[in-house]
């Protein structure tokens, strides 16, 4: 079987899960597509998952209320072994890329990380992935009875529902206690469209000037365009925006239809997170800024003048 580990938050199945189903179908490998749902109070998530899978395994327990790499890895490896999975797919989110390597070690399997495409190749699987700060596309091949994969968010189209909903089964797992204790949490939820799901992203860089200007014109422009708000590391370091909005090597990787960069210089570490966007728009007062080299559209000008004009123009 092909085992997919569901990604979900706030009782809802994440788009990443539907993307993994497409990735799984694309491998051309045999066996039922099985989604494993780990968590507490996940009945709703499980029935959403059933719409796209052949079967859904549900581990609903208090010991899974808090995500932990050790627990998740143990759960996934256990199900993969019992179900004789030949392919295990996890999301390419921070958590997915944190437990997937542990699963690979447990199963003594090759691990294809953060893949953007998958295809079968005789005995194994071939995958493409980005390397060197996303400047290079590499092709790798995993051979062996079992392969563990994490799928890069936004790289596969979300799967449409299958003809018939899959059966749901409850599973009991023998889980280790996580040796990491979480003593506090700060969730940086913004009320706006999540960056991983947004079709349009408006990102502000240091050129925006200060935190007030984000509320004064970055947010209103994003609202007019139904867009998510992103930020560069410089902006996050300055405390103008929360880390959850950072795009780049150490922030989020995004691939929207349009990425609008306001006062962003275009450093490689930033490009590595957004360089694969379909259309890149740059607004910068320095015509020599590196961001213009990767831009489809751009305006050489001061964000203080251009953005208010864009807000006006985008109203109509």
């Amino acid at each position, binding site marked *: 079987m092909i085992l997919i580990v569901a990604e979900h*938050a706030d009782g809802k199945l994440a788009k990443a899960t539907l993307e993994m189903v497409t990735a799984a179908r694309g491998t051309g490998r045999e066996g039922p597509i099985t989604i494993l749902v780990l968590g507490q109070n996940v009945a709703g998530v499980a029935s959403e998952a059933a719409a796209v899978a052949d079967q859904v395994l549900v581990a609903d327990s208090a010991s899974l209320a808090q*995500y932990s*790499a050790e627990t998740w890895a143990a759960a996934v490896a256990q199900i993969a072994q019992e179900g004789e999975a030949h392919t295990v797919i996890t999301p390419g989110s*921070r958590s997915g*890329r*944190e437990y997937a*390597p*542990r699963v*690979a*070690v447990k199963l003594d*399997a*090759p*691990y*294809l*990380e*953060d893949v953007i495409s998958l295809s079968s190749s005789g005995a194994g699987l071939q995958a493409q*992935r*980005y390397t*060197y*700060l996303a*400047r*290079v*596309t*590499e*092709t*790798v091949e*995993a051979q062996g009875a079992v392969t563990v994969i994490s799928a890069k968010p936004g790289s596969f189209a979300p799967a449409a529902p299958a003809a018939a909903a899959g059966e749901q089964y409850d599973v009991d797992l023998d889980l280790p206690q996580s*040796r*990491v204790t979480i*003593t*506090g*949490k*700060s969730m*940086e939820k913004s009320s706006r469209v999540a960056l991983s799901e947004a079709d*349009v992203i408006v990102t502000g860089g240091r050129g925006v000037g200060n935190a007030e200007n984000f509320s004064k014109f970055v947010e209103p422009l994003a609202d007019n*365009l139904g867009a998510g708000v992103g930020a560069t590391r410089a902006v996050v370091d300055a405390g103008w925006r929360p*880390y959850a909005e950072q795009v780049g090597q*150490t922030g989020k990787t995004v691939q929207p*239809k*349009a990425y609008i960069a306001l006062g962003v210089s275009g450093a490689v*570490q930033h490009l590595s997170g957004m360089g694969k966007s*379909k*259309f890149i*728009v740059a607004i910068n*007062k320095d*015509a020599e800024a590196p961001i213009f*080299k*990767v*831009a*489809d*559209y*751009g*305006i*050489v*000008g001061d964000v203080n*003048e*251009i953005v208010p004009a*864009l807000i006006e*123009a*985008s109203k109509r």
Partner: protein
Amino acid sequence: MKILTLIRQVPDAEARVRLSGNTIDLDGTTVVMDGMDEYGVEEALRLRESGAGVDEIIALAVGPKRNEDALRTALAMGADRAVHVETDERLDAVSLSKVVAELAKTENAELILVGGQEADWDSQALGAATAERLGWPQLTWTNELKLEGDKLTGRHDVDEGNESFEATLPAVVTTQQGLNEPRYPTLPNIMKAKKKELRKDDLASYDAASKVKFIGAEIQTRARMNKIIDGKDPQAAAAQLIDLLRNEAKVIK
């Protein structure tokens, strides 16, 4: 308590990445210690300076001969000695973790510091895979760390936001921006580093064959349209851009 800090050597961020045939060619490219790993070396030094009972800081690199430079930089920053498993073989992160875990065992290390996402293979797997091989807990994307006795406390980033944590050694910690500001090696320390031990080790003794075969690499530079508008008249420029996004790119309504 000993700390093992892992070093990868990667092209300088501003350096051009070149291909030769279908593999990346680093000959003649400026290579440096990965910035993410630099945070690890710095953090090990700071833990020692904070009085956390750190007996030794060992820098480890697995890779070609040129990695010596990155190890010397770690020694010049303040690491006590270095181990270089010299090889031109390409190991994937999960296979490499075998070498790291073995070394941690023979060296009796109790804390391993690894970069959160290395800038050469864009992978986050090394820390997690090493932790699993050792049966240790892991803390990834750490941006605050304290060590008292064998108790680690700190903060790290998760999918949406961040968490504070507590864990007991041994553990693997992956580093990232915000954890610290790495120091520059001073000239006297660079001189001293030349005398520190840099032990060579042989990959063959680790039984760490790669499970992932490298097939090829491509540099894809997607052609961009590069329609740049002069913003001297902000209203006209904005109207033109919105029109392009709506009617040419069709990405907004």
